[in-house]
């Protein structure tokens, strides 16, 4: 494994750690809002680091761009979802 693959592997593992942190947050935080907070960290950083590592590994610009697109779409969807859920939850007792 050359240097590029090492960097990619580290990024992947870091991303997976963020996923883990998000899951822990979701299980341990006291209420829905803080859990949402943990959840969005997963979407942003966890998936982002994962995508970055995979993009480095892919060796093709087209694949890297597609991965980036997936990440951007996932963030837009997740941010919208988190806002909607938080908004709805705040208006209900």
């Amino acid at each position, binding site marked *: *494994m050359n240097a590029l*693959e090492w960097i*990619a*592997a580290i990024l*992947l*593992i870091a*991303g*997976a750690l963020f*996923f*883990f942190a*998000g*899951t822990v947050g*979701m*299980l341990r935080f006291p209420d*829905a809002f803080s*859990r*949402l907070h943990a*959840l969005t960290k*997963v*979407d942003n950083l*966890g*998936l982002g680091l*994962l*995508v970055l590592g*995979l993009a480095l*590994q*892919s060796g093709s610009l087209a*694949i890297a761009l*597609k*991965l980036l*697109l*997936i990440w951007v*779409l*996932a963030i*837009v*969807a*997740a941010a*919208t*979802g*988190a806002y*909607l*859920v*938080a*908004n*709805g*939850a705040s208006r*209900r007792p």
Partner: protein
Amino acid sequence: MMQNICLALAVFLLLNVAAGLVRIMRGPTPADRMLSAQLFGTTGVGVLLLLAEAMRTPALRDVALVLALLAVLAVAAFVKRGWPDEAGGR
């Protein structure tokens, strides 16, 4: 080697998914359950991307694309219409 790393991380993410099920089961509010489903979607995208690398199947990235796009649909339906009035629906 890289394939093994991707596969191992995919297993790890799957364990996260299994753990996330607890939040769906426990709740207590509908918001809690729904945001777990959202996490499932995102983790699913992650697993798919890792499997695309491990199984050397580029088509899985397209599957991840579809999943990422449509994850918002269930949440939107929940917020707009499907939000139960009380914590435990009938």
